[in-house]
């Protein structure tokens, strides 16, 4: 796994870009279908924008809550209300390859938050739901303090979301 971090920056950047696009696809699906995500988003104001990215000028993606769903509105930083940035590309890789969870990245000072901290906490909880659906169950242990319990309905939703992922990735890649 250490060899991953010796890859060329361009390769690492591409891995993170694809991961961000996948987060966008999953966010949209879950914001429409997942009751847990809908409950989490119920406190969000429509139009709220958030960015996930890598400092200083690394890959980034911005998302917007429309009131009914979370949309990937494109690559880059697009006037977000709150943003969570990885301090370097290696820290982003640790998270996007499932080696550490988002909370561990924060604990290890690998991320910086720009904007309202309450919104950031809400964003992190929503991200946790996305990660639970995006990552296979056997990887959940180190990613969560309390790994989510996923029953039949959740597994069904996860399967559906994974089937939609390739088309969604292509769609998000051209934005």
């Amino acid at each position, binding site marked *: *796994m*250490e060899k991953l971090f010796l890859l060329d920056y361009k390769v690492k950047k591409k891995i993170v870009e694809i991961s961000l696009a996948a987060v966008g696809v999953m966010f949209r699906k879950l914001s429409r279908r997942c009751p847990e995500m809908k409950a989490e988003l119920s406190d969000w104001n429509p139009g709220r924008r958030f960015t996930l990215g890598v400092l200083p000028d690394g890959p980034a993606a911005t998302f917007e809550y429309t009131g009914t769903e979370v949309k990937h509105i494109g690559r880059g930083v697009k006037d977000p209300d*709150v943003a969570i940035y990885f301090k370097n590309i290696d820290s982003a890789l*640790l998270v996007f390859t499932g*080696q*550490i969870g988002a*909370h*561990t990245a*924060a*604990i*290890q*000072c*690998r991320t*910086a*938050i*720009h*904007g*309202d*901290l*309450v919104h*950031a*906490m*809400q964003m*992190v*909880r929503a991200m946790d739901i996305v990660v639970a659906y995006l990552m296979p169950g056997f990887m959940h242990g180190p990613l*969560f*303090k*309390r790994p989510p319990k996923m029953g039949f309905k959740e597994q069904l939703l996860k399967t559906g979301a994974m089937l939609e992922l390739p088309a969604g990735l292509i769609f998000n890649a051209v934005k």
Partner: protein
Amino acid sequence: MNTSLFEFYCPVKIISGALALSSLPYEMRSAGVTRAMVVTDAGVKGAGLISILENAFDGSGCDIGCIYDETPPDSAHTTVNQVAQLYREHKCDCFVAVGGGSCIDTAKAANIVVSEDTDDLMKFRGADRLTKPTRPLFVAPTTAGTGSEVTLVAVINNTEAGVKMAFTSPRLCPTAAFIDPRMTLTCPPKITAATGMDALTHAIEAYYCLQKNPISDSLALTAIRLIMRSLIKCVENGKDENARLDMANGALAAGMAFSNSMVGVVHALAHATGGICHVPHGVANAILLPYGMENNLDMRAGVIAELAPHLCSVPAQGGDAQRAQAAIQAVRDMTAKLNKLCGLPLKLSDAGVARDKLEAIAKASINDGALTYNPEHVTAADALRILEQAF
């Protein structure tokens, strides 16, 4: 692959002990400044502590440009703008905060306004948003609790938006902190108890929360030793200078520890309890600390057990679970003693919290960043359960 990593940062020069504040002008000149904007409150001024500061400037070649003594108990953004305005009008070149957390945080936030040359503090909310070097900030705490004299955090109440804004940046760290026992001698027993328990909570949560590291551990344990040795003495006899110095150093060490390892569920709940029911932060921490420790027993019994020798006599028999329970009981014994000595509340109901507010407090607490660092995952339901236990 071992993926662990920690950061530790504390660039604050510490001058601690007898007549420490007399060194302020020397430190100002060392930082290349000579004209101070003093931020304090009416209580500090009324206790005569500003005259100690003024005496320190005699014959020093430095002077006080302006004294602002109307800082409210909860630092407000309007106050911050007023202080920044006075700083500019009186052509000051540094800030001196004399007081508790509110005065220190007000000075830190006014420093943002002045240094970033802005009139919109809101733009700088969050972490690492400051782009320009800040002006030198010197701090003389008059309570032993918040640790704000060594932290990179400021919390300001936006009274218009009804939210507490948190700012964190290494640039917010003071230039120097003056721990002068003269400055805490007049602190009343109940405030001494509440702020002291705030410091103990910083140290204990810093020790068992997830961002702990070897350096913060050593500071947290030092803080616990000093606080356990001297908090009761300070409440019994506020004029005991040695005990006061212990407490001030303990609060400072706890501040350095938690500024780098952060805090957990106790602080998340205390922030929300303060925001919704206006319970003083130290009082809320004192009430919630044993319940927060219990909440983390499943994940952290071994680490909490390590605290036992520093909090009480360790049980001869038994494993981590018994020692962790002994540590929690020692905290309960401490708050019970403080309750007898000065009426420090033991339950949320005693502190004026209504039962019908618990749900709102629980809901607000899960949006507090401190929960990120708590070992146990905490949902709104978990938070409500802890609050009900503490009610």
